[in-house]
């Protein structure tokens, strides 16, 4: 039986890495490893998970320097010389050990006007959106975002610009900008533009590279940039 050497961040902003030796198995995920540590080696370890099948995004953390879902990461795919390093998601304040505070991530979601505003009531006809309309196809992928925070944690602009809304919030705003039923478009554009908004993106594509659902916030952010440029040119901004 071989062993995996696992360095795990313990503590909060002040803390240190602690090393555990975990039995290595075939088809082992990083979530299996963390769970083993907490159940058999150190019950005080704090970490998050829920569905453990790649649907909820709760298990997101930094594995060997890269933000991933631990339930969807095979140890064999990431272990280097029989070792892995686990840390909480980047760009977010720490609560404890491997648990990051997601509040700011969701606050920015709200700040980017990520809420749908419609006008129809239950007494009206259903809105009709054809699946192959251009606007629909543009955001088809983007609506699949589950808000796991991996893109936010992978973005350098979030690190360099504390006010930057971030890829997830902007992607969400984009899906609403292209939603024909939504009526809060003008207000939303004003919320997502500027130095803390889409113009801060320099297309490094850390978000697109690391999104576990293979979404591309970069595409949505480019769309927001174009929408704002159009609004400047036609005077509506």
């Amino acid at each position: 039986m071989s062993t995996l050497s696992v360095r795990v961040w313990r503590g909060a902003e002040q803390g240190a890495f602690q090393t555990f030796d975990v039995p290595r198995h075939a088809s082992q995920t990083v979530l299996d490893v963390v769970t083993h540590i907490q159940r058999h080696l150190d019950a005080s370890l704090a970490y998050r998970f829920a569905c453990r099948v790649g649907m909820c995004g709760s298990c997101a953390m930094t594995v060997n320097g890269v933000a991933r879902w631990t339930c969807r990461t095979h140890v064999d795919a990431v272990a280097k010389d029989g070792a892995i390093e686990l840390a909480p998601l980047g760009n977010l304040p720490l609560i404890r050990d491997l648990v990051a505070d997601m509040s700011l991530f969701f606050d920015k979601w709200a700040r980017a006007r990520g809420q749908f505003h419609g006008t129809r009531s239950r007494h009206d006809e259903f809105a009709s959106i054809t699946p192959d309309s251009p606007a629909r196809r543009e955001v088809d992928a983007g609506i699949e975002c589950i808000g796991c925070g991996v893109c936010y944690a992978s973005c350098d602009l979030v690190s360099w610009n504390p006010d930057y809304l971030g890829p997830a919030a902007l992607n969400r705003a984009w899906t609403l900008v292209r939603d024909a039923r939504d009526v809060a478009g003008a207000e939303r554009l004003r919320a997502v533009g500027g130095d803390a908004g889409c113009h801060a993106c320099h297309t490094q594509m850390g978000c697109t590279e690391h999104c576990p659902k293979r979404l591309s916030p970069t595409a949505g952010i480019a769309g927001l940039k174009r929408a704002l440029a159009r609004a400047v040119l036609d005077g509506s901004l």
Partner: protein
Amino acid sequence: MRRNDARARNHPAYWAFLVHRVSGVALALFLPVHFWALGQSLQGAAQFDGFLAWTALPAVKFAEWGIVVLLTAHLSGGLRLLALEFLPWRDWQKTLAAAAAAAALAVGLAFALAL
């Protein structure tokens, strides 16, 4: 708050960004010097010739070549950005980044051969 290190940045679009930014800053610093030097031509042909003699030095020629490479790198990186921001989205951004790098090398070579 944990910050990312190089491990999270090891992908083509990041390198393309870095090259684009560094080359841009270098060019922004070079440009005033370039303009000032050409302004010397106002003093007449003799002054200009003196300046041109200086540009024949190998170190200066190498710097010139470097500037051309930076310029082409910045240009092709910029074209990549314009494509990403204005054209319909495709998944071949890595190809764009590679094409930009190739173009920079090609022009650098052309300039080196011409020197």
